[in-house]
Structure formats: C-alpha cells, structure tokens
C-alpha cells in the first residue's frame, strides 16, 4: 500500500499538501520539546540539558522499528523508501562543518526555522547565515565539486556493512540508545547549572 505517492494512490499535488501538514507536525513537536531554544540545544554539548539526545534517538528508533513493522504487515514497501546516497568524504566533511556551525550558532536548520517562528532573533540571524552559506556553496560549486562527488558508495545500509539483518541492527541501536539515555539523565544532574532552569523560556 505505502508509500502512497509511489503507488499513485495520491497525486503529486496532494503529496505537497500533505508535506505541509507533516511539516506542521514536525514544527509543533520540535517547539513543544524546546528545540526552539538555542541554550537547550547547546546544553547537549555541555551535559546540562540532554533533551536533544533523548528526542533525537527516541524518534530514530521509533521510526526505524515502526518502518520494519509496517513492512512486516505489508503496509509499506521498503524498496521504495528513499535512502540518501553515501559519498564518504563529503558525508564526513559536511558533517564536521555542520558540527562546528551547530556549537557556534546554537541551531541546526530545522530548529532555527522553528525558533524563528516564535520570535527568536538569534535564530533569524542563523537563518541569514544559512542563506549565505548555501549561496557560497552554489556559487563556488566547481571548487568543491570533486570533493563533493568523491568516494561514491551507492546507498548502503549500515546493516549491510555490519552483515546483519535490519531488525537486529535496529534492536542493537535501541539498546545503545537506552544506555545513552541513562548517561544523559546522569549528566543533567552532574552538570546542572544555577543559571539554567529547564522549562523557563
């Protein structure tokens, strides 16, 4: 049955309309969890607030295991799910640059839009920066095109690399995540700050 768009159950215009509603759900959940707060997001890297870790990994596990169950019930054909291709060097290089942007700027793109929507001016500045950064990439494209397209590996799954089933990998990730949640809860007590009161923004 799913994905609906691939099986032509909905039209491409309907798909765009649904994208808008999916976005509302995405933005609402991000904001309701405080992803609209740069201090909360940065708190992840100092241990005083590990909400990012908890929400991020719970979401990845829920969606990952949910997909496997939908597939098991025959409700979705996993072969039609888009999987990002892996270009090894740009995946690492892009990630390193994004990580620097994250700790310096206090947001990532999705969270900055969410924060700007409730009036955070630092998020608006971050979005301005995003636009500049993308223009630099597009205008200077020939300079990094080689690096961008280097070491293409297709669209491999981590489970293929590790030679295990999708289900087993998802299960192992869930176990690792529970361990990280435990560390996160510990860190929030250990690195708690007097000047940071959760839920006070």
């Amino acid at each position, binding site marked *: 049955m799913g*994905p609906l768009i691939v099986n032509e159950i909905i039209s491409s215009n309907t798909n765009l309309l649904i994208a808008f509603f999916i976005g509302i759900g995405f933005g609402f959940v991000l*904001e309701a969890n405080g992803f609209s707060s740069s201090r909360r997001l940065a708190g992840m890297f100092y241990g005083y607030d590990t909400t990012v870790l908890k929400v991020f990994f719970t979401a*990845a596990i829920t969606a990952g295991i949910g997909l496997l169950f939908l597939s098991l019930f025959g409700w*979705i054909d996993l072969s039609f799910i888009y999987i990002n291709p892996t270009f090894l060097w740009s995946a690492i290089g892009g990630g390193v640059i994004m990580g620097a942007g994250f700790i310096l*700027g206090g947001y990532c793109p999705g969270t900055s*839009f969410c924060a700007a929507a409730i009036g955070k001016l630092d998020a608006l500045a971050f979005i301005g920066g995003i636009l500049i950064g*993308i223009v630099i990439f597009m205008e200077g494209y020939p300079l990094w095109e080689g690096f961008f397209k280097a070491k293409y590996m297709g669209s491999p799954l981590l489970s293929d690399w590790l030679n295990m089933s999708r289900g087993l990998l998802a299960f192992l990730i869930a176990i690792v995540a529970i361990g990280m949640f435990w560390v996160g809860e510990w860190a929030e007590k250990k690195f708690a700050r007097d000047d940071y009161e959760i839920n006070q923004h």
Partner: protein
Amino acid sequence: MKEAKKYMNPYLGGVLLGLVLIVAFWVSGRGLGASGAPKAALVAGINAIAPSHTANTAFYQEYLGGHAHPLKSWLVFEMLGVLVGGFLSGAVAGRLKFKVEKGPNVTSKVRIIFAVFGGILFGFGSQLGRGCTSGSALTGMAVLSAGGFITMAAIFGTAFGMAYFVRKLWL
C-alpha cells in the same frame, strides 16, 4: 506576564517525532528535511533576478534541469508547515516573544555574530553533506543508511570536540 507552559516529556516527544517521520515515509516515501528548502528558495530567487547568471553557472544548470520549479518541492511545503507548527506550539504554550537567546556571559551582539557565522557553516556543510541534521542524520538513521550514521557522528563528534573551546558562548 503569564508563565510559559512546560515542555513536553522528551521521550514522548521522541515517539511523536518518530510517528511524524513514519507518516512521511508512508505517504511520500521519504523522510523529513530542512536545508533543501532554503536552497530551493535561493535558486528560485536568483533565477528570477539573474536568469542569465543561473543559465551560465554549472550548479544552477544541474539543479534547474532536474526540477520542474524549485519552489514546487516537498521540502519547501514541509518547511512552511514547520513555521506554522512551531508558531502554533509557541502560541499554545505562551512562548511567543521577540528575544535574543544567549549564554549568560555574552552580549547580544556577540551572540548574533556567532549565530550568523554558525549559520554560514551549517548552510555550507548541509550542501556538502547532502542534508542536515533532519534530512541526513535523523532520517538517515531511521532508514539505517550508512551515510546517515556517518554524518550524524561527524556533526555531534565535532560539536562535542569543540564545545570546551567555545564554552564562553554558552556557559
């Protein structure tokens, strides 16, 4: 001023975010994203202002060749929804307010400068890495994509590694 409501329990929030992601997979065959939307808006804008420039520049030729109209894209509609959804949540919880959020020991000016600089890096990095925290890391992990895990590790590893050196910004 009325006190803002508390944030959601993060584990409940994670489950809800995971469900949103599943709906995206089930309906559209793809996960969530973010950075593709500002790129589409920029391409559309630059193409409208300077069509001769985009016609003669490699990146735009490639991009416009593969898209009907840059703004008629899934991510653009999704990100418009993010603005609406974020606003609704903030309105319900009493968190709508113009402010510069910053660490206790920096001025608003410093905060804004670093926000712009961080945004530039994230904007550039998201293009190089073919997706940001949403499209590459979160969605990639959910579909068990090897590249998703690599990008996720690179983003969070770098941010953790740099955190100590820029602690004055946040602590």
